[in-house]
């Protein structure tokens, strides 16, 4: 193993009372070391009371996102070599979310917004019906596929300046989820969903700054999804069908 032998100087956010501050640790550098490896080393060897969250370690579960040197990232797939500033690494909880303890954030509001954006599939078929036939090459299905791999890590939400300015903004992940369902030909809750994602707290609040798209570890473009929602809601608003009951 290529052990470079030098140490990383790691600053990790620790909760204290209502606030907190950075605590400093020296962690040996390893080859192919991830930021999650560093946090795990600190928790197992140096600071057993350190709270952090992870599960799969392979970029599937979306639970290990943190702010690394000022940028929200999924830590299990982020190599230290790529993000360390020399030998320095600063690890903090995700922004725009309340901190439970240390590096653990409360994700309730983040996921509640998925529900508020009607992020739940609404179907009309039962198990006795035949399978719905969806052409994978159709433009709508392609649009849905482009956003469907979201793992709910919250990196986009933590990177969004609009969420920071106005906390009621649904945020990129919830709107991206809504856009995948708007493009799902089987879904039956379209009118309600468009009404839910329009307006001041919805897609119209987005300033198209693109931080979500730049930072999404799955290379999804919530900015494009939000632009799609703006088009769809505008069409419905002008036709007078936004929020109207289907006839």
């Amino acid at each position, binding site marked *: 193993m290529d052990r470079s032998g030098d140490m990383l100087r790691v600053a990790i956010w620790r909760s204290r009372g209502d606030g907190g501050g950075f605590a400093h640790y020296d962690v040996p550098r390893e080859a192919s070391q991830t930021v999650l490896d560093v946090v795990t080393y600190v928790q197992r060897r140096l600071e057993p009371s350190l709270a952090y969250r992870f599960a799969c370690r392979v970029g599937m579960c979306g639970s290990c996102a943190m702010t690394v040197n000022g940028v929200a990232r999924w830590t299990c797939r982020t190599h230290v070599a790529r993000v360390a500033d020399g030998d320095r690494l600063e690890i903090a909880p995700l922004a725009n979310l309340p901190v439970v303890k240390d590096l653990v954030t409360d994700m309730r509001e983040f996921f509640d917004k998925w529900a508020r954006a009607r992020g739940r599939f609404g179907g009309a078929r039962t198990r006795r019906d035949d399978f719905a036939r969806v052409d994978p090459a159709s433009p709508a299905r392609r649009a849905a596929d482009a956003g469907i791999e979201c793992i709910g890590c919250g990196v986009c939400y933590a990177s969004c300046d609009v969420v920071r*300015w106005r906390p009621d903004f649904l945020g990129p992940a919830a709107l991206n989820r809504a856009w995948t369902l708007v493009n799902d030909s089987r879904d039956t809750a379209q009118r309600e969903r*468009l*009404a*839910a994602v*329009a*307006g*001041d707290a*919805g897609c*119209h609040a987005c300033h198209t700054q693109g931080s979500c798209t730049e930072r999404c570890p799955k290379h999804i473009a919530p900015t494009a999804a939000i632009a799609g929602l*703006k088009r769809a*809601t*505008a*069409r*419905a*608003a*002008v*036709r*007078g*069908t*936004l*929020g*109207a*009951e289907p006839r």
Partner: protein
Amino acid sequence: MKRAAAATAAGRSDAAGRVLADAIRQGRRWYWQRMSAMVLALCVLVHLVTIVYAVRAGLSAEAVLARTRGSLAFGAFYGVFVLACAVHVPIGLARIAEEWLGMAPRVADAAASALAWLLAALGLVAVYGMVAG
């Protein structure tokens, strides 16, 4: 259609109705701003080319007026240009007033409407002056 949507909004609980009314308002504003932006993109391009031509050719004010007076094409083009500005600019300014000045949506809308009429009136008077004056 507008009435149908408003009636739907009114039929809901107050809070849900307000959210829906806001959604409809934002959706419509976005639509008209996008539509006017498409018109403006073309108008600005033609306008810039015209201005550059007029300046490089060294046309005097009299020479410009001689070309615009009685020109229906000039009047129609700049009439559309003015109307697109009158739609586009107030929508954007209302949004900025709401976000940066914390103006209430109703106040911002009223101010935007007043500005729209002002821009349209001043612009159309100017176009009229160039074509018929």
